[in-house]
């Protein structure tokens, strides 16, 4: 299984899926978020991410998704569209090297919660992801209400 789960001390802040084709970027995200108290699952591209979420024997539940755009196989756009359709409650944060307003706007319209342009500091990433996970919590609460 290529889906890596990084359990933090207790994963008390929630579970985050990190999708990025570059290993070193994933490495930073995983390390930062884990240290901050998230449980992190990583996938090297959109195809893998979708496969992980849809695994028949062990479907993965996540509180938020951190996703790159420029990736081989299923790229960020396609993956995001899929996530929004299949898991409308899971907040999606885009982390990308493209500083384009157009792209940011169109993705936000598509339901992306936040659009982060690299480089971004460890603390900022943690804050945004914490907020994203909170969003999911609210959503969960609402469903349960």
């Amino acid at each position: 299984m290529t889906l890596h789960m990084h359990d933090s001390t207790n994963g008390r802040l929630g579970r985050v899926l990190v999708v990025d084709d570059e290993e070193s970027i994933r490495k930073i995200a995983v390390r930062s978020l884990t240290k901050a108290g998230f449980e992190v699952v990583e996938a090297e591209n959109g195809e893998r991410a979708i496969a992980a979420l849809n695994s028949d024997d062990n479907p993965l539940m996540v509180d938020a998704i951190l996703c790159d755009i420029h990736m081989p196989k299923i790229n960020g756009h396609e993956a995001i569209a899929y996530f929004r359709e299949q898991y409308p409650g899971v907040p999606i944060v885009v982390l990308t090297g493209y500083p384009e307003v157009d792209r940011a706007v169109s993705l936000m319209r598509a339901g992306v919660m936040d659009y982060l342009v690299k480089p971004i500091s460890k603390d900022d990433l943690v804050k945004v992801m914490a907020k994203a996970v909170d969003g999911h919590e609210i959503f969960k609460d609402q469903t349960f209400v």
Partner: protein
Amino acid sequence: MDAMSTLKHMPGSLEYALGESEERFRAVVETASDAIILADHLGAITSWNSAAQVLFGYTEDDVLGKPLTMIMPARYRAAHQKGMERVQASGHSRLAGKPIELHGLKKDGTEFPLELSLGTWQSGGSMFFSGIIRDITERKRVEEFHRTQVAVSLVLASCDSFSQAASQLIQAVCDITGWELGLIWLVDRDAAVLRCEALWHQPTIPGSELTALKEHPPFPSGIGLPGRIWASGEPAWVPDVLKDLNFPRAQAAANARLHGAFGVPIRSGRRIMGVMEFFSREIRQPDTTLLQMMADIGIKVGQFIERKKDTERLRNINECLLSFGKDAHENINRLTALCGELLGGAWAVYSYAEGDLLHAIGRWRTPPDFPPVYESNGHLCAEVIKDGRGDLMVVRHLPATSYAQTDPYVLACRLQTYLGQAVRRNGRYIGSLCVVYQQDILPREGDRRLMGIIASAIGVEEERKQAEQALQQAYDETEKILASVPGAILVANEDLRVVYANALACQHFNEGRAEMIGASLTDVLPTEVAQRSWVFTRRTPQTAENGYWQQDREFESRTKAYRYRLFPIAIRGSERPQIGLVIWDITEQKRLGDQLIQAEKLASLGTLVSGMAHEVNNPAHGIMGMAQIILDETDQATIREYAQDIVGHTKHIATVVRDFAVYARRSDRDGESEITLSERMADAVKLVRRSPYFGDVDVVTDFQPVPLLQARRTEIDQVFVNLISNAVQAMNGKGRLTLTTALQGDAVRASVSDTGGGIAKEAIGKIFDPFYTTKEPGKGTGLGLYIVHRIVTKHCGQIQVESEVGKGTTFTVAFPNGHISPKEVSHDTAHA
């Protein structure tokens, strides 16, 4: 009366009958107009009629019984005596039966010509003579006049000029009329005197005595015999010059022992041209018949002089025409002067009419203050032009005409006569040739003809001048057009010598040269251009028409950039080829063009820049993240690993920045270099690959080895980046990008194919137009393919596009193999 005598007088008797016959005979003899003289065998006069008395001046009583010799000049007497004796002996006279011409001697001692009809008869064994004598003085005179006329005519007919004829004329007259000396005087109109033209004398007069007659100071009008004749225009007779009061040459005449003289004018119409005078050493009484005859000869000589003058004038005109130069004005001036000189006027002017003004462009002896341009109003010249007549306008007695008021020169210069002839140019009267006189002149036919001829000659010059002006104008206009063409034009012959350069060419290329014409093209233009021109002159016009030679080329000279084209020049009548160069200054255009290429590149970089941002941000993020991790990390091995990652990210950033920087570089800072097409295509893909729209496009390459291309690298990069960007964008991140290079025939080809949506047929014609784009606003400048086209054609290449909607598009650029760069041309020609 005795019986015998009575009988004698009785009618019917023999005596009576005889007497009656004798009476009848006597009556006939007495009333005859001819002298009838009878003589006996001894030559004594026996009968003398009244006509004889009138003829010889002797009465019957004076001569009866006297010898016949008394009425004949002494020189005949011996011959007469011999003849009488012969007749006595032979019984008949050789002279009888036919009239003979002799001279008679009058009682007063003068001789006269006579015609004698001699008869003889026998009576009483003796011989008797009868002579009928007629005075033939008049007949002789008429004959003499006739002979004189014929002789004069012969002289005139055989002589080419009057000076040649003059002394022969005098001799002919003297020989026939018996006068001994003659002189001819001609009028010198300018000096208003008569000058001696010729002198001839019989050998009986010693020539030494005559010099003073001839070399006497010229006669003014009215002075001396010639002056009197000139003044009066009439013949004059002086019986004895020594007794004449108006004869300044009396001393000379006395020395030569001259007495009788007469003279007649040499004239043509009313014009006195000279005087002929004749002298005799005898006192001569006026002979009106002779005078009349000589006056007639004077007219004949006058006509001869006029004719010769006309011939001479025609010769002068001919010489004048033959000596014409190129300058029509100068020629017209000479014709005007010739007209004035030949017609002997005070001055002559040729005026050309233009509107209300007359331009005096031909002048001869005009007053110093005569204006070059004057108002035509009130001037005779204007009338001549206005009248537009072919014949001469003659105005006499000018002071009495209204022109005396309108033309100040009439009175100021005391002008009397005006002769004006209209000058025609191309069928229209445009000017007037005039001659003015201070005398009253009635032009003769020759003068009219002369003015007509000169006016025609001026007309021809005017036409020539007009044609020349038209030609000059056409030339000037052509020159002006060529001068204002926004390009430099140079024409060189096959030796590459400049034969023409317009103003702009001189301005651009005639650095410090006094004269561009004749300069060598190699000195004027860069060597490679001159050499290409040289090769061009060796081509036939047909090969010159092929595409290669019609392509514009560029060169740089003294910080300026030029584009030029060669063209062959066919010059009529010349087999030597000439070559033309039209050269445009494209410095500014080139600068703008380079700027445009650069601007497009920067604009297209905009679409690439997000790719670049990604490429930079990604590693930057990595660097930042790694660095933050290191800050918290204590494990040396982990720190080392992360630091290693940071180095990798930094290198990546450096590479990306360099790639973009190289691409963004201004191409005009580069020279041409040798380029490997496949390398350039691969580099372009690398650049485009970074763009966000590259997606999952597969890249397939088929690079066959091709010759190197001589070009600017950055420009070729721009071509491929644009083509590949377009291809990738057309595929929306999915598809196959195929890049190929191949040598096909004479062309090096490189193609970029995509499997995108293709280009609609109606759009294909426009894709190379500037600002044509199918992309959404902000996604494309519409300049990409336009710039690609520009760059490719600049390197003498071509670009083709094949596209099928739904299947994809292939752009192929083709450069001529061995694309002859200017450098290669110079090699070529160096070996040629």
